[in-house]
């Protein structure tokens, strides 16, 4: 049986290493359960790579390319352990010696989808898996929506690689925009005439991603802000 010792908890503010502003507090969980070896407060910068569970070949290649460039620049890859783009993002980080965080919608002692059990074990052993749900929590579909908001909150920026009109990634996209954080949408998705959501998100501040290296320009470093006019 899973125990508190096996899955310790941390205040979200301590996980991020700073208090939250009023906009961030709105949907922020108080407590985060975690398993893994990553330092706390979390290293920066952190970028979410998210998207559909049924990616095209191009989507898979784009997720790999964006993840690789970020990893080469010591950016931590955040994703949701789902099938498809999420799995590609985590696996690309592992293969290329990067760091990755899975923000899951189930308690830590459960895995969804089941086929990612080994991936979750690997992330718990060598990276980090976090959940806002205690081990006795009964999972409902809404939990994944709330998880997506949490994923937006712990990420300095988010990238939607490929997603349909009903993708859960869109919840994260809207929350990223609400927080005022950069939301990138891959160019091929923006210009896909079958999709309405990219145009709508662009109207509300999402950025069309031309070159993955452009993401680096808006990411924070570990260097602190200087004191001003002292």
């Amino acid at each position, binding site marked *: 049986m899973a125990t508190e010792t096996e899955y310790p908890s941390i205040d979200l503010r301590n996980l991020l290493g700073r208090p939250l502003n009023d906009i961030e507090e709105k949907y922020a969980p108080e407590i985060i359960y975690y398993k893994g070896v990553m330092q706390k407060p979390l290293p920066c910068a952190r970028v979410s790579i998210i998207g559909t569970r049924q990616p095209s070949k191009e989507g898979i290649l784009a997720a790999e390319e964006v993840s690789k460039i970020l990893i080469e620049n010591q950016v931590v890859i955040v994703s949701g352990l789902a099938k498809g783009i999420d799995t590609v993002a985590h696996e690309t980080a592992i293969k290329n010696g990067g760091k990755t965080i899975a923000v899951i919608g189930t308690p830590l002692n459960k895995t969804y989808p089941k086929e990612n059990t080994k991936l979750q074990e690997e992330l718990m052993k060598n990276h980090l898996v976090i959940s806002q749900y205690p081990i006795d929590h009964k999972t409902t579909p809404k939990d994944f929506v709330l998880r997506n908001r949490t994923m937006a909150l712990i990420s300095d920026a988010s990238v939607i690689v490929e997603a349909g009109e009903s993708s859960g990634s869109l919840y994260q996209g809207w929350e990223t925009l609400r927080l005022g954080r950069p939301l990138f949408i891959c160019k091929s998705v923006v210009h896909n005439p079958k999709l309405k959501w990219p145009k709508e998100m662009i109207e509300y501040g999402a950025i069309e991603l*031309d070159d993955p290296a452009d993401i680096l*320009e808006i990411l924070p470093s570990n260097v602190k802000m200087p004191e001003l*006019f002292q």
Partner: protein
Amino acid sequence: MNISKVEFGSLLTYTPRGDSEKAKGAKTAMINLKNDNVLSSGILTSEYIVQAMAREINTFPFADYFNSNAVLVPAPKSSLLKPDTLWVPQRITTALIRNGLGKSSEACLERVTAVARSSGQTVGANRPKALKHYESMRVKELLFKPKEIVLVDDVITRGATILGGVNRLSEAFPDAKIRAFTMMRTISNAEEFSDVEDPCIGTITMYGEDTSRVP
């Protein structure tokens, strides 16, 4: 658009691509401001910078911008805005008024159509032009006609948003003296960046379709 030149004050600078510790610290300041992060001291970044500014205001060349007649107008985001969304210029104007700088904060300039952005535009030449900003904004009526207006933005790059906004405001309030203030300005060339603290007065000028910012 009738106005082709605007004076602006600015407090801080940052560069998007600098590798020095100073440049990275300034970029952190920019990101903290853009997210209005709470600093380890428990204060919002907008409030922290405004408090620092208020302490030294009389030493800055733009001190007179924030006189008791000055109505502070937050610059709209380039996108449309849903309720409960972070809007940093509005948080800056609120902090300025709270700290005794200016008469009131009036969110009377709004974006009615979005101006799309793409990555690589942080310093790129293909940024939206002032005319596009002008065409995408409108002014909401105020009960009293302001004598002086300061259009306040968080970060300035080329000044196209400011120039478009000032033209809209000047149409609605033709008798008002209008200037602009930006908390930070972007130094595109990292070699030209010297320090995060660099208070100045400058100008934004139209050249054909483009805008040029000095300094």
